[in-house]
């Protein structure tokens, strides 16, 4: 039996992807709808009272969840990555701008719970549904179970955000072999087919996060020398800005305040995202939407006004870039190549800023954009997966040496932070500290671990508080407790301790701040049966039937389409025959027969699908089939990662 494949996953704010190493090339695995991007949207289907187990909610993910966002906004969620590993007081700003409904009874320090319809989910659970969808896409593609993955995270993610991501993987039934930083993954994807040497920088502006990493490449070793970023900066912020402008204008000029109407806000958000994408290639864009009162809101946005408006958002990336360059101890002109990652780097004003900071055109250089900025991180994750699996000679000699983005410290007397591991230290990294007691007979010592660059503990991120327990009673100052802090290759902290005089191993209870305990994670595992072979086959059949139903539904609507008149009677008859065959075979338990009948119908409708596409978008996307046409029509024009497709067909 061949060794199990390890997949690479980009769990993005706006879109998520799964990729793997096919021979010597990483490739993205498409979903059932043929699309490489799975929008990071999770929706709870309305509960069917007739269902045998009504308590178990049905969850949809990706393009099919997109509809719910407008129709049932209180049952759908997007951009959940912004909430990963965060507490109530961290997210107050997000709550003003995103329609997250949180449970009313969240305590400070507790993991957030998001309300979806009548249920509540933690951010890792929502992410787990997205991961499960990607896992299934990969399993469908391979025809075999997938249980091991590399998942990417923003380089600037802190310990809690990383732990939350790893927990999500576990809940989705994935053994997360490694968390890889997104910009580093992108560097791997680019560095694969060229034996590059020298210093490169990766500028990664995605939907919700910004990272800058500077790496030194040397004979297959990718050594990160500095990283910086902002985990709350991305295309979402530009959307929110445009949205706020439109909402103000509608309120001031039409006297209608839409801020309390989630469905109207979603419709407006969709329109501003389309405008943003248009403005990356056109001199102006137009907002044109029907308001709930029937009036139309129309707004022309010229590129120069738009750029003035978003400049402050884009400028926020400059500080982290300069800091990273300074931390790397280099000058901008020493950076030989610059890689652009993330959909927001399609914005011309972003490219202008990058060009200035890194003095590119002044040196006759251009940024690297050869790989699709939406896919490059997933491709790099697949490369790292292959490195870990040892499955490809292409990746044999590659090694990634990453760093911790934030300094690690412990709270000392007076609330100041004693730094024990500096930011930009290569991981794994460790530090050993000694503690003692202040009172005779004291058996506990409390330790507060923090992450961040500020001097005061109150200004840093609390990672964990734990007690060293079971210290043998001794006079004050006599015990000598050695605590070892180790940041592993995932950027996650591990702590061990021992009392040196008595030789006793001190018991440590690390209580994560805004983290879930192992026991909590266990209870949240989505499908504990996921790994069983028989269940896998059963699920394959269920999924094949769903796929069949999707295409059957599309074919039923076909005669109503204008393009139906463009195909021959012979073709119509062939489609009808294939349709009847699939209808007949669908209820059976023969996986192969269902799949064959599905692809037969798909093939029979190929010409019709092309005609339909031609009618819709001039000449785009030949060779698509009925199965993919429906979704493609909605997603074909994606230029930046965003929640909504730019144009509705119907």
């Amino acid at each position, binding site marked *: 039996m061949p060794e199990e494949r390890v997949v690479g996953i980009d769990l993005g704010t706006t879109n998520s992807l799964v990729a793997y190493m096919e021979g010597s090339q990483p490739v993205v695995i498409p979903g059932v709808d043929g699309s490489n991007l799975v929008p990071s949207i999770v929706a709870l289907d309305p509960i069917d009272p007739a269902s045998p187990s009504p308590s178990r909610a049905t969850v949809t993910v990706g393009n099919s969840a997109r509809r719910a966002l407008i129709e049932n906004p209180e049952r759908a969620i997007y951009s959940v990555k912004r909430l990963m590993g965060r507490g109530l007081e961290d997210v107050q700003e997000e709550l003003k701008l995103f329609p997250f409904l949180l449970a009313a009874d969240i305590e400070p320090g507790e993991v957030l719970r998001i309300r979806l319809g009548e249920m509540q989910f933690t951010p890792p659970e929502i992410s787990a549904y997205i991961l499960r969808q990607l896992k299934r896409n990969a399993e469908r593609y391979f025809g075999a179970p997938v249980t091991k993955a590399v998942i990417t995270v923003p380089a600037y993610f802190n310990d809690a955000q990383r732990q939350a991501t790893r927990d999500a993987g576990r809940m989705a039934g994935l053994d997360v*072999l*490694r968390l890889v930083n997104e910009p580093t993954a992108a560097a791997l994807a680019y560095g694969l087919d060229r034996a590059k040497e020298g210093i490169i920088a990766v500028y990664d502006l995605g939907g919700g996060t910004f990272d800058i990493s500077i790496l030194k490449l*040397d*004979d297959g*070793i990718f*050594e990160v020398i500095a990283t910086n970023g902002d985990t709350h900066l991305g295309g979402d912020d530009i959307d929110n800005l445009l949205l706020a402008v439109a909402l103000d204008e509608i309120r001031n000029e039409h006297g209608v305040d839409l801020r309390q109407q989630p469905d109207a806000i979603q419709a407006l958000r969709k329109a501003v995202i389309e405008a943003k994408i248009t403005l990356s290639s056109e001199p102006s864009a137009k907002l044109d939407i029907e308001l709930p009162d029937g009036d139309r809101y129309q707004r022309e946005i010229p590129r120069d006004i738009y750029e003035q408006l978003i400049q402050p958002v884009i400028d926020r990336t400059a500080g982290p870039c300069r800091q990273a360059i300074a931390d790397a101890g280099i000058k901008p002109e020493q950076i030989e190549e610059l890689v652009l990652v993330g959909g927001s780097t399609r914005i011309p004003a972003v490219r202008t800023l990058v060009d200035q900071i890194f003095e590119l055109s002044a040196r006759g250089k251009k940024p690297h954009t050869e790989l699709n900025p939406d896919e490059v991180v997933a491709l790099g994750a697949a490369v*790292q997966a292959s*490195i*870990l*699996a*040892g499955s490809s000679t292409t990746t044999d000699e590659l*090694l*990634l*040496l990453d760093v911790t983005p934030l300094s690690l410290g412990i709270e000392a007397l007076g609330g100041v932070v004693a730094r*024990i591991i500096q930011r930009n*230290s*290569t*991981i*794994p*990294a*460790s*530090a*050993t*500290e*000694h503690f003692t007691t202040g009172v005779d007979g004291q058996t506990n010592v409390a330790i507060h671990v923090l992450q961040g660059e500020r001097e005061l503990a109150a200004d840093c991120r609390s990672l964990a508080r734990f007690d060293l327990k079971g210290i043998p009673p001794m006079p004050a100052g006599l015990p000598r407790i*050695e605590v070892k802090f*180790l*940041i*592993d*290759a995932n950027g996650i902290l591990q702590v061990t301790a*021992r009392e*040196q005089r008595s030789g006793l191993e001190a018991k440590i209870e690390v209580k994560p701040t805004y983290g879930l305990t192992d026991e909590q994670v266990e209870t949240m595992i989505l499908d504990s049966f996921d790994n069983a072979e028989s269940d896998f086959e059963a699920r394959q059949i269920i999924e094949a039937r769903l796929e069949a139903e999707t295409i059957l539904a599309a074919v039923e609507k076909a005669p109503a389409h204008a393009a139906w008149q463009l195909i021959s009677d012979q073709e119509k008859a062939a489609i009808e025959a294939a349709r009847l065959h699939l209808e007949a075979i669908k209820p059976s338990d023969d996986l192969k027969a269902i799949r064959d009948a599905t692809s037969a119908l798909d093939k029979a409708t190929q010409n019709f699908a092309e005609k339909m596409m031609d009618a819709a978008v001039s000449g785009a996307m030949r060779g698509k089939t009925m199965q993919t046409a429906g979704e493609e029509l909605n997603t074909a024009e994606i230029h930046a990662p965003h929640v909504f497709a730019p144009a509705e067909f119907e």
Partner: protein
Amino acid sequence: MSTTLTTSAPAVCWACSAVLGGSALLCPNCGKVQLVPAADYFQVFALERALTLDTSTLEREFHRLSRRLHPDRFARATTEEQQWSLANTALLNDAYRTLRDPIQRTEYLLKLEGLKIGEEHAGKGKSADRQPPADLLEEVFELNMQLEEMRMNQKMGESDSVLLSDLNKAKNRFENLLAEVDTDLAAQGAEWDAGSSDVRQKAANTMATLLDRRRYLRNLLRGVNAVLSNPTA
């Protein structure tokens, strides 16, 4: 920071029973990762304790060892080997980070030699790097007066070009002093490397004092730069 490890070094490789060198992270015979022995940062790189070292050789060795030790290479190994790989790689990274930087390297070596450096010798009183070096007392006093005046000016929104130029002069002066310290440290380091134990003892004490002076000057300059980079300056 100390990295005293409580486990004792195994004499032989757990996998092939080859006899191991004093502090091998990997078996020289079969290449398997070993339970971390008590190794100091110099031993990690199989180096003698020395203050002058070639950082490009160090980097090459760091990359060579990383290729074999890194947890990425042990994703399919036993849990034990994974743990040893993690611990050894952390030790390797800590060692490389410390040894590649001349100041950290000096501080580390002096600590290994039993000297107290920086905050550690603070005891109950003021640590040595918080007190101005005796030969600079007067200059530091004057600089602090000027800094205070500059801060007042900045608060009131006034500007004094003479004061500004004085401060810039002082900044240059102290930057030069800092550079002198670095030169002296390098010279003492070379002496330590080559010297007999008597010479070493003397050089070590001198270097400890120089490190205090260096830390003091750096803090002072940080204050000057903060005032000068204030937008109202």
